[in-house]
């Protein structure tokens, strides 16, 4: 536990110590002690749904329809990017990958795309043409496998293409089916790290050239390496400091960086949960599917504006009044967002700055956050408070006791209680509840001016709402104060450093990597909390590329408990 955190827990007092003791800011894994370097294990990641989409788009173009569904990704230690190193592919999932692979491949070689994507013409459209197939499959294979195909692999796919051409009597169908099987292969679906002895550290290991390229590109771009990066890998440049720096610099200025930053925040803010977000339309008629999509994008745009466009202090995401809105969102925010274009044209994003006396400031007060962390029919200080701890501060809140009764809370106006604050007061009288609720509800109370779908309100069931709140001994008057408190909270800085590092590694950092994390944090602070600077430093860190030897036994990991906690708490509070 960090110095700052220790101080905080003392501040809060005895009742909370139980809870905070169960809270681990970062789950640190015991590292390899096989050699003197603090190198973590290599990881094999399953492509996330977003990465699969990005690669298909990068390799085959943006108009390819995937036509399938992905197995659910799994969040571990707060990130899907970490869960990706722990999941496999089930039979049902394989059938989906197989179907998607065929759909993508069929489009890639169809009449609309083949001229652009297949670099040659077969001698006959109804017969196998090994030369042309070789040209295409080796080119595409290098991008999909993120390294050149071995001659053995290539010959297997060439045989597949010619056999399929023979059966179907169509060169392009055969080629497409061979490509489809490549899209079903483990070398495409899993990002393996191939390890080699590290010549600079005797007894140590490092990622091979192409694994370095993949590590970089999935971190910075959330996609596979482009051809230039693969060429740099082929030339051995990525194993030199200068070569690595040159590529990182290039990648940091690429428009794809936004894709990588987006992916991090979608993961960190748990925006994948928007896929299953639903509101009771009778209670929240404005919260349409379009409004939900716009709200998610609004927060992404707000964050990207702070961290990339303005390259401002990362912490401003919790306080900034500058945002972007559509007419659809304007209705929910109750501010006028007029169309600019002609009637019937799509709604456009417009920059908007909330006035200084407006309760909206920072992403925690936006519709995306308040609506995502509320049940379908109302708001929830508990879920929101818990989300602030988990998402903004990387803390974990233990689950409620198994035998707790929620009937008091379910009934909106039981015992004359009108507001959530009054209803939750019932929990405070139960000792087994009060410990946790004390550390989460007061955070959420500050957001009570926003209903279950994020619209502003001043009353609940006719009673005025009191939006005062408190976090770790710091009190504030309203949502704006909450944003400032998070801005000022050192845990918010540690949180983003740890999670970004975990995302880059594809695993939770180990104990031995604490020193590295501390350095990152210190440099991040020195830079004025500029996220691109932090990303660049992570991308250039040895920790990403130096690994322990391939292990004989599974890594000694803590069980990924967090999802159970979240799921159960949500269920109880639903």
């Amino acid at each position, binding site marked *: 536990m960090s110095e700052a955190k220790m101080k905080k827990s003392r501040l809060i007092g005895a009742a909370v110590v139980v809870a905070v003791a169960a809270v681990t800011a970062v789950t640190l894994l015991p590292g390899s002690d096989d050699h003197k370097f603090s190198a973590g*294990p290599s990881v094999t990641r399953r492509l996330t749904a977003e990465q699969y989409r990005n690669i298909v788009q990068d390799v085959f173009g943006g108009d390819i329809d995937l036509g399938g*569904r992905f197995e659910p990704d799994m969040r571990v230690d707060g990130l899907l990017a970490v869960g990706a190193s722990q999941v496999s592919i089930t039979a049902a999932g394989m059938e989906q990958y197989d*179907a998607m692979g065929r759909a993508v491949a069929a489009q890639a070689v169809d009449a609309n795309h083949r001229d652009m994507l297949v670099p040659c013409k077969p001698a006959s459209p109804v017969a196998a043409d090994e030369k042309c197939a070789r040209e295409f499959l080796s080119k595409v294979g290098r991008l999909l496998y993120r390294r050149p195909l071995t001659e053995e692999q290539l010959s297997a796919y060439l045989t597949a293409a010619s056999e399929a051409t023979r059966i179907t009597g169509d060169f392009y169908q055969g080629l497409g*089916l061979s490509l489809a099987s490549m899209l*079903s292969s483990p070398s495409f679906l899993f990002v393996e790290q191939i390890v080699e002895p590290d010549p600079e550290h005797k007894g140590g290991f490092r990622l091979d050239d192409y694994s370095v390229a993949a590590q970089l590109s999935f971190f910075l771009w959330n996609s596979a390496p482009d051809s230039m990066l693969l060429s740099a890998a082929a030339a051995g440049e990525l194993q030199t400091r200068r070569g690595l720096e040159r590529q990182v610099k290039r990648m940091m200025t690429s428009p794809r960086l936004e894709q990588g930053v987006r992916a991090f925040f979608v993961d960190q803010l748990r925006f994948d949960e928007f*896929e299953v977000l639903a509101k009771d*339309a009778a209670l929240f008629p404005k919260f349409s599917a379009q409004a939900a999509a716009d709200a998610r994008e609004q927060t992404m745009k707000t964050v990207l504006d702070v961290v990339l466009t303005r390259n401002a202090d990362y912490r401003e995401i919790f306080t900034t009044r500058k945002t972007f809105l559509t007419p659809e969102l304007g209705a929910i925010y109750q501010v006028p967002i007029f169309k600019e274009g002609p009637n019937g044209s799509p709604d456009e994003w417009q920059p908007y700055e909330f006035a200084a006396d407006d309760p909206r400031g920072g992403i925690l007060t936006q519709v995306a956050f308040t609506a995502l962390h509320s049940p379908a029919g109302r708001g929830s200080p508990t879920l929101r408070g818990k989300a602030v701890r988990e998402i903004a501060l990387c803390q974990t809140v233990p689950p409620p006791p198994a035998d707790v009764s929620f009937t008091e809370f379910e009934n909106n106006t039981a015992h004359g209680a009108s507001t959530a604050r009054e209803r939750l007061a019932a929990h405070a009288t139960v000792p087994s509840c009060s410990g946790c609720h004390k550390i989460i509800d007061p955070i959420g109370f500050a957001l009570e001016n926003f209903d279950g779908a994020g619209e502003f309100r001043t009353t609940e069931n006719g009673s005025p709402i009191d939006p005062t709140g408190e976090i770790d001994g710091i009190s504030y008057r309203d949502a704006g104060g909450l944003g400032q408190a998070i801005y000022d909270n050192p845990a918010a800085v540690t949180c983003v450093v740890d999670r970004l590092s975990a995302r880059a590694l594809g695993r939770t950092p180990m104990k031995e990597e604490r020193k590295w994390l501390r350095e990152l944090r210190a440099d991040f602070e020195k830079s004025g909390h500029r996220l691109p600077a932090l990303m660049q430093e992570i991308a250039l860190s040895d920790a990403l590329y130096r690994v322990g030897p391939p*292990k004989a036994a599974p890594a000694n990991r803590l069980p990924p408990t967090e999802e159970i906690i*979240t799921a159960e708490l949500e269920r109880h509070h639903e």
Partner: protein
Amino acid sequence: MSKGLNRRTVLRGMLGGTAVSVALPFLDCFLNTNGTALAATGGELPVVFGSWFQNLGFNPGRWKPATLGANYQNNAEMKVLDPFRDRINVISGTKYFLDGRPLETHVSGVQIATMGSLPLGVNSDPSLDTTIADVIGNRTRFKSIEIALSGGRQSLSRRKGGAINPSEPSPAALYTRLFGPEFRDPNSAEFTPDPQVMARRSVLSAVSEERKAVMQRVGASDRARLDEYFTSLRQVEQQLDMELQKPAPMAACSIPEKIEQAEPGRNVAAVERNNQLFAGLLAHAIACGQTRVFNMNFGTQGLRTPGGVRDWHSLTHEEPIDPQLGYQKDVTWFIEFATKTFASFLTTLDSYKEGPGSVLDRTLVLWQTDHGYARTHTMDDLPILTVGSGNGRLKTGLHVVATGDPSTRVGLTVQQVMGVPLNSWGRLSNETSKPLTDIIA
């Protein structure tokens, strides 16, 4: 939390808490409960999908069962379906969402019910029966059979971009199409494996060949995960192997009596008669492996009561609510007629026996309508029914309430259990990624 945790528990917890759609075992038509593949000759008969569209809905308060879950009691307008109650799921409370588009009465609802979206020009979405037919209807003589029960040739079966599969209004014409000179006895016909399947099977060898190299490269913990991957890949291969074998003979296939002449169903008597004829033809066609997808459009075009002047649709708007009964009397006569017709259709499918079961036993029928209450064109609290388990893919006999949810949750569920690779279905507010897990077996 004291229970041992493993990845599966975690995954389950996650799914339970956030309602992520659970991937379904699409392979189960080839696997028995032990997960081993059945021999081709002893395999169960393939699943069949049917849609039944009845315009003009039910009366509010007269169709919805009073209780939730299992053992519900049918309300007045569904009483006639009592013999099938334990095979029917009633889904209530769902809505069609317009997202600001104009309400085209009797059209918008049909579009959302069948396509999951309101069409936008040439990019209209396919109706769900066609996506299902693309999965289960590829190896039959007819990919699907469309029938217009009450006259006209109106069909709700559409390909992407709006191409319509036309409906057949005449039982005599359908007889000729199915069992006329072009009919071949499926049991005497040569079996030719599908070249597409052969080609797919052959290219997967290139992937399997990677196994050895991959397993050598990765560490032990990842080896278990990749082992699971290769097991999954093997199952896809086995599924293709099954498709390449000659299927079991269709022992129950028999050719129906010839239908010489039957006018399209412009009046209720004709509808009643044609319904029997169509149901019989479909049962034979399914038993003889001619099709695995059918679409029955009950329609309403000009359907009048015997001796009555006004048609059903006009009556929904004009007939006063009977003060004693509390509903429109003549409209209700039509509703009951339509439901009776549906019950008789199901009875015919169920009385066609195939071994120990019936044609209905391997069929899943989706019943939908255009409005919650036709009189005022409401788009909410829609009645939706599923009939049959489709070879055990759905649980049955349940009343499920999904108040305020898009109706497309039902369409998504049905497509997923039929094996359509869909993560979500519908557009805008009608889009959903949440199947009705309550009814998935």
